[in-house]
């Protein structure tokens, strides 16, 4: 009996001295802005992580989508075009897994078309229907040419018109993960199962953030 007590005490002691493991975290990425201001005659420089700025696009239903649509949501962004002969179908297959697993948990997907001429909103709607998407959880976006490409720049994504390349456009195969406060939190190879798995484990963590 006595020994039991001592043992218990020892266990409790060792437990309490044990630090909890560090919480897994996802780094905040994206540009860092430097603000300077003068306070009491002294110049101060503050570094602040940029947030994704205001935007306005049109989704596959012809509805306006803006920053309000995504506010408070973890969301995933990619760039594609419906006539894409190379990596886009694979990326859509990978995104579909994310959609199936997380659309019920408030995660949104924004797929920006970089081909506004051919990918009008009815064309995007048709494409979405082929992926069996008929709701507001996965939005296929178009808009005017310049704002699409400016948006790609803000996400630090590579997207370009290129007459030489198959389909007429080139873009990278990344998924971009953005948190509830519109900070970029990760880039993942959207053409592989591994990239998608990694993103899904990070989504899990971001969903728990306030």
């Amino acid at each position, binding site marked *: 009996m006595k020994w039991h007590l001592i043992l218990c005490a020892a266990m409790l002691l060792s437990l309490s001295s044990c630090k909890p493991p560090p919480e897994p975290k996802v780094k905040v990425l994206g540009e860092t802005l430097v603000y300077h201001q003068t306070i009491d005659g002294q110049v101060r420089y503050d570094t602040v992580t940029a947030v994704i700025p205001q935007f306005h696009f049109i989704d596959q239903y012809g509805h306006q989508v803006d920053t309000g649509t995504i506010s408070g949501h973890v969301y995933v962004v990619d760039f594609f075009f419906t006539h894409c002969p190379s990596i886009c*179908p694979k990326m*859509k297959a990978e995104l579909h897994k994310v959609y199936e697993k997380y659309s019920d948990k408030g995660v949104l997907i924004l797929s920006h078309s970089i081909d506004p001429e051919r990918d009008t909103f009815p064309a995007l709607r048709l*494409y979405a229907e082929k992926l*069996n998407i008929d709701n507001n959880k996965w939005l296929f976006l178009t808009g005017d040419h310049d704002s699409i490409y400016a948006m790609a720049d803000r996400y630090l994504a590579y997207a370009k018109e290129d007459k030489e390349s198959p389909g007429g456009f080139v873009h990278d195969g990344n998924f971009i993960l953005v948190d509830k406060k519109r900070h970029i939190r990760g880039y993942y190879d959207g053409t592989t199962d591994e990239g998608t798995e990694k993103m899904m484990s990070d989504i899990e963590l971001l969903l728990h953030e306030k």
Partner: protein
Amino acid sequence: MKSKFLRIILIVVPLGCISFFLYMTFFHSAYDHPGRYVYLDHCSSCHGEKGEGIQQLVPPLADADLAREQFDSLPCWILAGTNRPMIVNGKTYDQPMYPTAMTDIEMTNLLNYLASDMVHAKRQYKSDAVIKMMQRCRP
């Protein structure tokens, strides 16, 4: 002494045979087909690693009735691309498939791989036949 040696042989040889057989059937066959690599290079990004397709965007190839029934058209579909509504296993698909260039050797391996392991069509080709099929569909 001699009988012990014999006994060991009698055990080791059949065991080796069995494990070799199991290895060939379960780990080797499908993945070692030279056409598998052509498939992974040129087709799997759309049709999926196992030929499962993507929703109603890209039709499946695994046990696809259309491909099985019109297997001889495959070289032309692959080389020239297709863009028309297609019904595969009861579902309609309508999305362009873009032309893919490949050599006759790649095409032969690919067709034989698809026929034996994915579409399950009772067909095997030799290069001379495939070369003719490929010539016929060049515009």
